[in-house]
């Protein structure tokens, strides 16, 4: 969870009463929300809820019927649309890599549009290949059809980040990956986002993904925003029955435990057995306790210093509905 140092967090994206109608159908219905700088907001909802339309109104691929989008206080309608898009990274399901351009050329797209000089572009491409663990010697000159799905995904995100955008829009960016690679790709994105501090708005229909990645989650249904809150709030104080259902009542305690860290449930005292890391999630600790048939296990921090112990009872208290 994000620290709540509210003064320091500048609001980057303000969405004000954004509405889109196609003919008589309302596809996005009067949505307002604020995305804080350096955070990931995940938009979830069933297919057809209007998530993609909302996202595409931010970089003006779709013109809103009414309402406004402000980036750092500036109305996006006041910025020429191509200039706006140079400042906003965009990743779609399937990525849309240029099949006739090499990995390097794909990544260089926006810097080239911005007229960076060759040396600066080359250096930036190297930096990104490195960041995304794509060996430059092996991949720089490859064409997209020569890459695996996971590699294409990384090139897609690297391309979107090339000109250091203030905001990254991602529409089901992991949707084309198989489950095993998907989880790893999500972890990688999270690590890169924490490192670069990029503000991300991400669309998905996968609840696990939303809980895995979201600093905040926006639940949408039938063009409306039902709730926009932290994952913990969504679990403990769902605004509507639909949110509760979508979150999954059976999963609820486990999702909650996955949000908490062992550090928050450490008790004084000693225990024997394989120690649990203080930075592990409570869900991971519980699963380790159950698997090893233990009541308690010792807790250590990153450098191995003992901090105390963790118990099944102590963990369960964190997975319980708040009074």
């Amino acid at each position, binding site marked *: 969870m994000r620290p709540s140092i509210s003064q320091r967090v500048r609001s980057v994206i303000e969405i004000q009463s954004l509405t889109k109608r196609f003919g008589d159908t309302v596809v996005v219905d009067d949505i307002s929300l604020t995305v804080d700088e350096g955070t990931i907001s995940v938009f979830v909802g069933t297919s057809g809820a209007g998530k993609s339309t909302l996202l595409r109104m931010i970089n003006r691929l779709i013109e809103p019927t009414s309402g406004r989008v402000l980036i750092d206080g500036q109305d996006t309608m006041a910025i020429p649309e191509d200039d706006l*898009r140079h400042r906003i990274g965009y990743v779609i399901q399937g990525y849309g890599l240029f099949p006739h351009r090499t990995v390097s050329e794909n990544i260089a797209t926006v810097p080239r549009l911005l007229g960076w000089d060759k040396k600066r572009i080359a250096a930036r491409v190297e930096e990104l290949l490195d960041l995304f663990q794509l060996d430059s010697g092996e991949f720089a000159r490859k064409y997209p059809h020569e890459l695996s799905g996971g590699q294409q995904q990384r090139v897609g995100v690297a391309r979107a980040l090339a000109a250091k955008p203030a905001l990254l829009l991602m529409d089901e960016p992991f949707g084309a990956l198989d489950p095993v690679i998907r989880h790893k790709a999500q972890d990688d994105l999270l690590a890169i986002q924490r490192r670069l501090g990029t503000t991300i708005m991400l669309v998905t229909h996968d609840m696990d993904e939303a809980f895995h990645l979201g600093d905040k989650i926006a639940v949408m249904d039938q063009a409306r925003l039902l709730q926009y809150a932290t994952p913990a709030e969504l679990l403990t104080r769902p605004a509507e029955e639909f949110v509760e259902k979508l979150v999954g009542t059976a999963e609820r305690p486990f999702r909650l435990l996955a949000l908490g860290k062992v550090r928050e449930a450490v008790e004084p005292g000693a225990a024997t057995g394989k120690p649990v890391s203080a930075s592990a999630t409570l869900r991971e600790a519980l699963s380790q306790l159950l698997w090893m048939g233990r009541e308690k296990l010792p807790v250590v921090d990153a450098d191995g210093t003992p901090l105390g112990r963790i118990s099944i009872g102590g963990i369960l208290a964190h997975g319980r509905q708040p009074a």
Partner: protein
Amino acid sequence: MSAGPILWRLAALVLLVVFITKPELFAPLFEPLTINNAPAIYNQGSLLSLTLAHLGTVFSAALASAIIAVTLGIFVTRPSGLEFLPLSRSLVNIGQTFPPIAVLAIAVPLVGFGEKPTLIALFLYGLLPIFENTLSGLTQVSPLTLEAAKGMGMSLRRRLMEVELPLALPVILAGIRLSVVISLGTATIGSTVAAKGLGEVIIAGLQSNNMAFILQGGLVVALLAVLTSDALMAVERFAARKLGQSPS
């Protein structure tokens, strides 16, 4: 490409060049086809200059067809031109369904005998394959790629020049090749309206009942068609490789 086909093509090219520059060397081969001591080798003009004229007509017509058909194909695939798609399709189709010989018949009273009516007929006849291939090349560009291009802030012009046309190029080139190859054969009818070309050899053969002439004209046209088609196919492969497409 393996060495075999290359050797065959080289042999065909050598045969063609020798035949149109020194046709008399082949006289013994064609003699059995003549009767009443008729000449075995076409003797009413130089085969070389007829071949060059033939190629000149075909390539100028193809160039004009390509410019018009590609431009039209681009226009009707833009949002502003979409409504003209059905109209231009039928116009171009008329060009194809109208027999070239009928075009000649109509064009001669308007523009006179000679090169011009042939150029008009070949131009009209060559539009369809290029237009259709331009359309299919441009429309088969993945919508995801275009969405990404637009989302990254590429202008309409850049999207066309840097994404759509390069990706459609191999298909467009295939259309041009088709058009050129068809025209190489079709151009022979131009000789009926006094255009300079290889049709003259065939018509002379028909008029004097000289099988040797007919065969010579046919042979040169056929060799031209095969070699041109091969050369243009090599260009297509080169373009596809340049564009990172796997050879298909």
